[in-house]
């Protein structure tokens, strides 16, 4: 990273500091507060990691301790967002929690036909809502250590397994999946992030499956990219698009328009070695720019969330790594310098240390116009003894083959980076964050994995779902008082993909300009709401709101404050949003359109 970039980043921090002084809501900071309502809401389900058989069982279980994921989406278009939660052990069901609209939920997974997936040879590892056929109803993809399952939403509360005809028939040890329209053809494509190389861990023929280097591993599963044909199926384009050389241990993928050219770019977070950043060439291919953009790293990348945390008009990226008593990696908050380079400002912003980090998600939790950051952490909380000293001989014995599962000691009841407090970083609007998890009521010590940001009750205060490995789920209801004004936009693509994933919204209000993009599953083990949420503090009106759709169409829209608005591409605000979303046309409200 050049000196110029660092100076530029520092100047940006200074600019943010100056601009924040003009932001009225910064004068007072009401405390962010949450109430954990998982049990009361009926979603307090326990996750179970996959158990393996044989003498390597505990080692493999330890290396595959993911799979506790959440996906947020309004599958029945009733205007309330629902929650899909995965389990991972053999025979254990997934959960589809239908939002009853009164802060309670009903598990309808079995009735809907989406509870399965944890068969003896496959492990459910991630989930994603996306409308692959643009019929206005969210379909569901279940990623697995195995082949994925694609469920088509039949629109009557039931889903149909269409995996066999989807073309998604390639085995992979997938841990992350995102949907985005990489070629802007109006259909959502899929990118899978794969952890292990494609061998079935349930039926292990060769024990040499673990990383070949713990800082620079090259024997992971990489990524695969699948193009939506628009005919209900997908075809693999990994090599053609330029991702064929990635062989890292992918844990997460984040997408966004990093260079403001209207195309969706990619950040790949990898365990045991370098992350990767790819820029979309606009012709169906991508080019890797890691060396110039961020430089190569040796860290344990777990998460890639994308947001403009400092409101400078450029999307930044947050990556969690491992920072503990025995390993001092520090997270990476990649500040986008706007010139093709990024500067890690995690230390300067106070977001460096989150223990053994997993998901980290940006969200404006107090509606002050600055996106806060919630991070979950902790690998394995068990007995009083630590597993770490047992690993030392594995790491330091010359010539020992660390890819062989037989060379790793069983963890037994030992703890490994467990009992870690979750971190909630409040964005102070001056380029720094303050850790407030305790006062906010989210400083639990469960072994967190995924985060889903959701507005449970449509009150404009963003709520949080926290999944935990081998532990129960937490649902945090945002009860922050005296929060700022807000708008929430549900975008409906017409020429663009129906979910409007990749759409960018720019809002000017109260002296600040903010941007958001609709994302298709950024952040480890959690898909957040696809609604675009803006807090605007004490501002009483939106000065300007502009949407840049993935199709390239841009339009300016007027929206009311403090309510959820549905906006259809080219038609502005539509009064009957949920119906419109599901394909029933209706009238329009104020719109100013341009192409």
């Amino acid at each position, binding site marked *: 990273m050049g000196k110029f970039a660092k100076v530029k980043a520092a100047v940006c921090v200074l600019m943010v500091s100056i601009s924040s002084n003009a932001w009225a809501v910064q004068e007072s900071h009401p405390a962010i507060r949450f109430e954990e309502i998982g049990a009361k809401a009926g979603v307090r389900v326990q996750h179970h990691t996959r158990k393996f058989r044989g003498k390597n069982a505990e080692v493999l279980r330890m290396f595959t301790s993911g799979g506790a994921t959440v996906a947020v989406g309004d599958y029945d278009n009733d205007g309330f967002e629902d929650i899909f939660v995965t389990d991972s052990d053999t025979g254990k069901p997934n959960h589809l929690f239908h939002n009853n609209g009164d802060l309670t939920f009903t598990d309808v997974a079995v009735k809907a036909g989406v509870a399965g997936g944890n068969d003896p040879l496959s492990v459910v590892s991630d989930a994603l809502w996306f409308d692959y056929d643009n019929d206005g109803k969210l379909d569901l993809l279940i990623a697995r250590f195995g082949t994925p399952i694609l469920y088509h939403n039949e629109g009557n509360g039931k889903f149909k397994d269409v995996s066999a005809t989807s073309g998604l028939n390639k085995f992979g040890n997938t841990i992350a999946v995102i949907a985005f329209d990489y070629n802007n053809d109006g259909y959502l494509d899929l990118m899978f992030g794969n952890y292990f190389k494609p061998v079935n861990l349930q039926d292990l023929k060769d024990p040499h499956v673990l990383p070949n280097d*713990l*800082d*620079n591993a090259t024997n992971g599963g990489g990524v695969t990219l699948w193009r939506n044909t628009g005919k209900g199926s997908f075809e693999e384009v990994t090599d053609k698009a330029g991702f064929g050389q990635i062989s890292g241990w992918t844990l997460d993928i984040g997408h966004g328009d990093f260079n403001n050219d209207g195309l969706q770019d990619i950040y790949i977070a990898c365990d045991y*070695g370098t992350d990767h950043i790819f820029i979309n060439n606009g012709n169906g291919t991508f080019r890797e720019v890691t060396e110039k953009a961020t430089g190569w790293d*040796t*860290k*344990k990348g777990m998460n890639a969330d994308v947001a403009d945390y400092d409101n400078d008009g450029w999307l930044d990226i947050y990556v969690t790594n*491992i920072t503990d*008593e*025995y*390993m*001092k*990696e520090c997270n990476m908050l990649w500040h986008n310098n706007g010139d093709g380079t990024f500067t890690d400002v995690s230390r300067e912003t106070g977001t460096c240390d989150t223990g053994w980090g997993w998901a980290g998600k940006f969200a404006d939790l107090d509606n002050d116009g600055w996106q806060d950051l919630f991070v979950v952490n902790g690998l394995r909380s068990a007995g009083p003894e*630590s597993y*770490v*000293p047992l690993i*030392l001989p594995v*790491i*330091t014995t010359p010539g020992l083959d660390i890819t062989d599962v037989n060379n790793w000691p069983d963890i037994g009841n030992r703890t490994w980076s467990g009992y870690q407090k979750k971190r909630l970083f409040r964005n102070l609007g001056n380029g720094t964050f303050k850790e407030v998890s305790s006062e906010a009521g989210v400083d639990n010590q469960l072994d967190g994995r995924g985060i889903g940001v959701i507005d449970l009750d449509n009150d404009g205060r963003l709520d949080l779902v926290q999944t935990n490995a081998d532990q129960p789920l937490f649902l945090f209801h945002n009860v922050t008082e005296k929060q700022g004004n807000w708008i929430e936009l549900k975008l409906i693509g017409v020429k663009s993909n129906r979910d409007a994933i990749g759409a960018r919204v720019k809002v000017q209000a109260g002296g600040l300009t903010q941007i958001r993009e609709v994302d298709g599953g950024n952040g480890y083990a959690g898909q957040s709401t696809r609604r675009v949420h803006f807090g605007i503090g004490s501002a009483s009106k939106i000065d300007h709101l502009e949407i840049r759709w993935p199709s390239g169409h841009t339009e300016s829209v007027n929206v009311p404050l403090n309510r959820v608005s549905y906006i259809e591409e080219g038609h502005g605000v539509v009064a009957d949003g949920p119906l419109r979303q599901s394909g029933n046309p209706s009238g329009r409200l104020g719109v100013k359109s341009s192409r």
Partner: protein
Amino acid sequence: MIRKYCSHFLIAVLAILLLCGLAHASDSDFQQGIKALGSNDFATALRYLEAAVTDDPDNVRYASEYRKAAIKNKDFDRSLKFFEKLTSDHPNSANLHLNFGFAYVDKIPVAGSITQVILANNALAQFSKAVELKPNWINLYTRGVSYLFWPKVFNRAPNGVADLEQALSVQKREQRQSYHAKTYIALGDAYWKTDQLDKARAIWQEGLKLFPDRPELKTRLAQQGDDLKNTIEANFDPNKRVDTDLRDLWASSQK
């Protein structure tokens, strides 16, 4: 008989001349290396200093300056290979093992977090060989401090206490040197890391009496709680470069 004595005499003279010549050669190489180092011509410096160390492998200064050039040239692997070969050729040179250990330490800040552990462990093995061969102050002090870099979960700080107490014992029998202050600082840190705060403060006090100008001792004695923790922990951050220059050994003035 006379011829025989003459022959022995000539051989001896020849041997002395040869030794003088070699010593001279290594010194010449060293001077050339230092000159190149001074003008930031690191490639040349490395070449001359490698020749100097090869000719005089137990010369702690030559090896230290060589590592300095390797650090500046970011040529850590070359340095490691060089010392690996040389320690193999001269397994009984304590100073060579000491510098080999430091060559591992020199690479730690640019390595990944797991590789850092491997490098630290390798360094420790070399420091231990140096102690075995020559349990003098520098070897005991170095290994003692290296134990303190290990995270608490590995429970190596008690070994650091033992080495540093022994180093203190050694230095008390020697003429006082300014670098001896480091033992008081490090031993106090070792006590602190093993939850013996009273002993830590006592040893820092003892050190301050002998070395009243050392700010590290003053700072530690003035601090408590998290401030003291931050001061101490800042010295054991694997991502920060440790000063492994051994110049104190030949540049120290008595205090």
